[in-house]
Structures are given as C-alpha cells and as structure tokens.
C-alpha cells in the first residue's frame, strides 16, 4: 500500500471520482494553478482542466449556491472553502437551501453536494480562520458532517461523501494535512456513520474525532504508563453518528469521556452525552462523564494562548487522570 499524506488522500479521492464520473467537478478559490491554500488540489487543474477544476472569485455564497444548482441538474460538485470559517459567508445556501431542498420539496429533489475545507486551530491563523464549527451543521437536519482523522479515512470517506445523494460537510484539519499513512487506492469508500475503536481499554471510553483522535491516543499512552487503560473511539462522521458503538463500549468500561477541539459550550460532546444518558448504557455508568474541549473563547492568536485554547496531549492526559483518580479507579 502506498503511503500518502492526508492532503494527498483527499486529492486522491477527488481525482478518482473525477476520472470515473464526468459529473464530478471541483470549484473554489485559488484551487487551480495555485493548488489551493493548503495545496490540496495541487496539480489537479493540469490533469482535468480549468472547466472541472474551476477557480472562482471570492464569493462563497455564490459558489455554494452554484454548487447546489449544479447538483440539482445532475452534477456532483465539490466546493472547496479555503478555510471552513468562510462557510459563514454562505450560510443561507448551506442551511436554508442545501439542507432543506430534499425535504421541503417532498423528496422530489436531492442535493449531492460536498463542501470541503480545513477547520481547526494550531496554525496561528487567529479567530476568523481557526474555528471548528461542526456542531452548527450537526444541528441542521438535512446535512451530513464528516471529520476524518487519518489519510485512509480521508480518502474513503470522501469517496462516499461524493457519492452520497445529500449535502455533506467534509471537514479536514489543517494540522493533519501533512501526516502520512497507508492508503489503498481502490474504489471502495468508507461508509458514513461507522466509528472505529482505535484502541481497546477497560477503564473508560474516550470518544473523539479529527485531530483530537491523535492527541487522545497519545494521552492514552501516557495513561498506560501509569496503569490506566482507556478505550478510544474515532467517530469519523458526526452525522450520521455511530452511537451504538459508543453505547456498546460504555457498557464495557462504565465511564465516558468526550474530547473535541471545538468550544465546549453547545458542542458535539453535549449531544453524545445526552445520547448515552438516554440509552441503556446509562445503567452501566459508574462515574459522571467528562468533557475535554476547546475553551469557551474565540481562538486566540498568540502561541501560548492558542495552545491553551486547544486540548493538548498533556491537558487530555491530566484531565483523564484526575477524573479517574477522583472516581477511585485504581491504576
């Protein structure tokens, strides 16, 4: 299996599908000769031409809307948002249009559209270029939300997202673009809505996604040295969400922690918590649950502030350790 970066894996999925399906095309700001702000579309215009790798003006509402319209007449557009924060400029098209069209017109139309772009902090891009706003879209029926953590998932999930008959928000993480992993260049997509247990453990279940999967796994190693063994679930997609996997895990471990980079307040963590409390796993819970999240502030610029905003490996390990000690879980 070839090794490729996460960015190359995203590109590979787009190229695969474009080679196979003439309805698929990409549009966005600076995705042509520039190759995209993060290099994700690098070289694609040479292979597929300016028509299908289409540079747009700076007009997010226009291009997301154009993606919807093209989808309605049978195309399969992929719209790149240079930073996922800029989806804010296209909110009406995403929330009032793309998400509603299938439902509102009685199922007579569907919007097979992928909106993809980088989310997350850690690059010093400050408050308007570093957000993780996935919870907003998770809240809107009609949208699917995907957040891969590894190159093979990035490729496989994007293939599935492109083939999905619904609008899918595909969030890449800036700090993951350069990580490498083995990726099979096959036609097989990864199904949406299936989480993965990345590490088995007995003392607690930690549910996470995107960049935080890596940090939680590292934190789990630190805990292992102290004698705790935590299970780590990578959700991979938030809508649909693999709650059955979390329930099954919590029934075994009896403790649930959730970690995400996004601001804690109103975040995905609350939803996961509620779903578990509503489920049969409730009876198995032996401890109050724990959320480890971004601070309830916009993302600050200065390196020490930005690092404090994001859950770090140390913060995650310490939070988990304190929690386990408090709950009297002996290592």
């Amino acid at each position, binding site marked *: 299996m070839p090794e490729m970066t996460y960015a190359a894996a995203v590109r590979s999925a787009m190229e695969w599908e474009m080679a196979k399906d003439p309805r698929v095309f990409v549009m966005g*700001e*600076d995705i*042509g*000769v*520039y*190759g995209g*702000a993060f290099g994700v579309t690098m070289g694609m215009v040479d292979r597929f031409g300016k028509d299908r790798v289409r*540079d*747009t*003006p*700076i*007009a*997010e*509402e*226009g291009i997301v809307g154009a993606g919807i319209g093209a989808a309605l007449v049978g195309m399969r557009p992929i719209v790149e948002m240079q930073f996922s*924060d*800029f989806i*804010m*400029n296209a909110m009406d098209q995403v929330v009032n249009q793309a998400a509603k069209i299938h439902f509102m017109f009685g199922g007579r139309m569907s919007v097979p559209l992928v909106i993809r772009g980088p989310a997350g902090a850690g*690059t*010093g*891009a*400050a*408050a*308007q*270029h570093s957000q993780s706003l996935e919870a907003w879209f998770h809240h809107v029926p009609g949208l699917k939300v995907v957040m891969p953590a590894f190159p093979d998932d990035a490729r496989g999930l994007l293939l599935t997202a492109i083939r999905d008959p619904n609008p899918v928000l595909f969030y890449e993480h800036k700090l993951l673009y350069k990580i490498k992993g083995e990726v099979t260049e096959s036609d097989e997509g990864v199904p949406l809505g299936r989480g993965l247990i990345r590490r088995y453990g007995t003392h607690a279940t930690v549910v996470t996604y995107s960049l935080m999967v890596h940090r939680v796994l590292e934190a789990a190693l630190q805990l292992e040295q102290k004698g705790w063994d935590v299970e780590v679930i990578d959700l991979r997609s938030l809508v649909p969400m693999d709650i059955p996997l979390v329930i099954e895990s919590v029934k075994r471990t009896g403790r649930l922690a959730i970690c995400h980079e996004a601001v804690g307040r109103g975040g995905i963590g609350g939803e996961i918590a509620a779903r578990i409390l509503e489920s049969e796993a409730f009876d198995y819970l032996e401890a109050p649950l724990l959320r480890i999240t971004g*601070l*309830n*502030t*916009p993302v*600050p*610029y*200065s*390196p*020490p*502030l930005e690092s*404090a*905003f994001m859950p770090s490996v140390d913060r995650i390990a310490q939070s988990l350790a304190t929690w386990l000690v408090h709950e009297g879980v002996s290592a």
Partner: protein
Amino acid sequence: MQQIENTTTPITTATALDWYRTMHRIRRFDETIDELFAQGKVHGTTHLYIGEEAVATGVIATLEPGDVITSTHRGHGHNIALGGDIQAMMAELLGRATGYCHGVGGSMHIADQSRGNLGANGIVGAGLPIAVGAALGFAMRHESHLVVAFTGDGALNEGAFHEAANLAAIWRLPVVFVVENNQYGMSGSVKEMFAIGHLADRAAGYGIPATMVDGMDIFSVWETASRAVEAVRKGQGPHLIEAVTYRYKGHSKSDANRYRSRDEIQQWRQRDPIDHLRRYLADQGIDPTELDRIRQEEVQAVAQALQYAEDSPWPEVRMLDDAVYALEEGDHA
C-alpha cells in the same frame, strides 16, 4: 515653500516629506515582518502592503480628526498611515501582551481605534457593511465625519460589497470606498474574475460616482481622495475610488507566485511609489542625503519596535477569562 503643481490644493514640501517618511515606515515594517516569517519567528500568516504604500498614505492624508476607516487583511499600511504605534503593532505580530490586541489578534486584526481604525479584518469584504454602519451613525447624529472603507479588488465580488454599496448610496452616507486594485485577489487576476474592464465601473450600478487613479503616484491618489472627501463631506453621498496598484510580495506567506510572471512583478517595481516620490523631492532640490536620513530613521524605528516586541512579555492564559465579553459599554480594556 515649494508647492506641487497641477493639484487643487497645494502640497508643501514638508507634507511631501512626511509622506515619504510614512511610506518608508510602512515598507520597512512589512519588510521586517517578511524577514521574521522567513526566519520562522512568527507563526500564522500575514499579508504585506509592500508596493501599495501610496494608497493608504495618500488617502489617509486627506482625513480629519474624527473620521474613521475600516481596514482589511492587508492592513498594516492603513494603521501606520493613521499614525499607529509600530511598537504595539510589532508586539501584536509577535503575539505579545503589549500588542494592540494583547496578542489575541495577530497580523490580521491590528487596529488603532484611538486613531479611527475600526478594524482590520480576516474576512474578505466584511469591513464594507461595517463602514456603512459607521457612516450611518455619523449621519444620524448629524456629525460631519466620514468613513473610508478600504477594500481589495477581490472583495468586490463578495455579496457584502454589493449590499454595502447599495445601502451607502440609497442613504447618501458619507463613505469613500477605496478599492486597492492590486491586480489579484490571491491568485485570481482581475482579468479573470471580472467581466468588466475597470472596477470603478461597478459603482455606476449603485448610483455611486467613481474615479480611477494611479495608485503608484501619491500625488494623484491624494488629489483624487481630496476631491472625493470634499464631496462626501458636503453630503453628496458615497464615492468610490479605484486605486490601481500592485502587490510586490506573495499574497501571504505561503504563495509561490505561480499565477504571475517575474517579468510582470519587475515591471511594476519600475513604477515604485516611493521612488516616484523621491524623484519628485529630489527635483524640488531636497538633498538626497536628507532623504536617506529619513529612510534610515524609519529603519531604526522599526528595528526598535522589533526590539520592544521581542522584549515584551507573552500574554498570560488567564487573560482569556475576561476577554470575551465587555463588562460595560465602552469597556476597551
């Protein structure tokens, strides 16, 4: 005093020398930022104003106390032309507690509110409706202040521009839209991203008078802006200026310049706005050593600003606790 000919109001040599100083300060500041990024001393990204100095300097020279501006992601030059403190700017870029935003904002959010800068902006086009709102506030209070809304060419394709332009026009608000047409929005050339020849032509669709000006010539910029400002201040409604200029450096720190040629960059550099002003001043009989001295002083000042920034403390994490909400109106801690 020597005076500049062919302009509506005379420019004294002293004023021209001031401009020369300001333009050098802007250039040296951004050159220094460029070096810091190259050395990996700053994280994040930045957008340099090098090549476009005549626009901010010439336009802002026409403003009066109480007037305000809205700035962009490429905002260092605007803030310096307003007289902003380069120490606090540099400290912000280095993420220090002594920066304009206490290190919270960084390159894209440096703004000196005390001098009328309502904000640099990381979101393309977002400052334009805000500028209109500031003008609305002035108009509702019958104050004679006006607003200069700086914008790039690329931003004119955002919905925000169109909504802002129309609002300003129908309410006859005191806004001067200054389009810094540096030929590109990141890699998108104006030739490909617009189906019209001159961006200034857009204004007609909103009933806004517009003027195109050579943005590499500070005298033209100043003269055009003076006229626009005068008309706007008289209550004639908004005006749009298209200043034709060029960005010498990449769009941001990660730009390989694949969308334009070295030749093109070289050609524009021949029309350098600082050289242009220098030639004028030399023609006026100013001793070149005097001009070199001014430049040298600005190089010194920027070096001191960098030293100040490097010596400044990092912000403490607990400052975030009180940073999100204002405690009371006008809480600008």
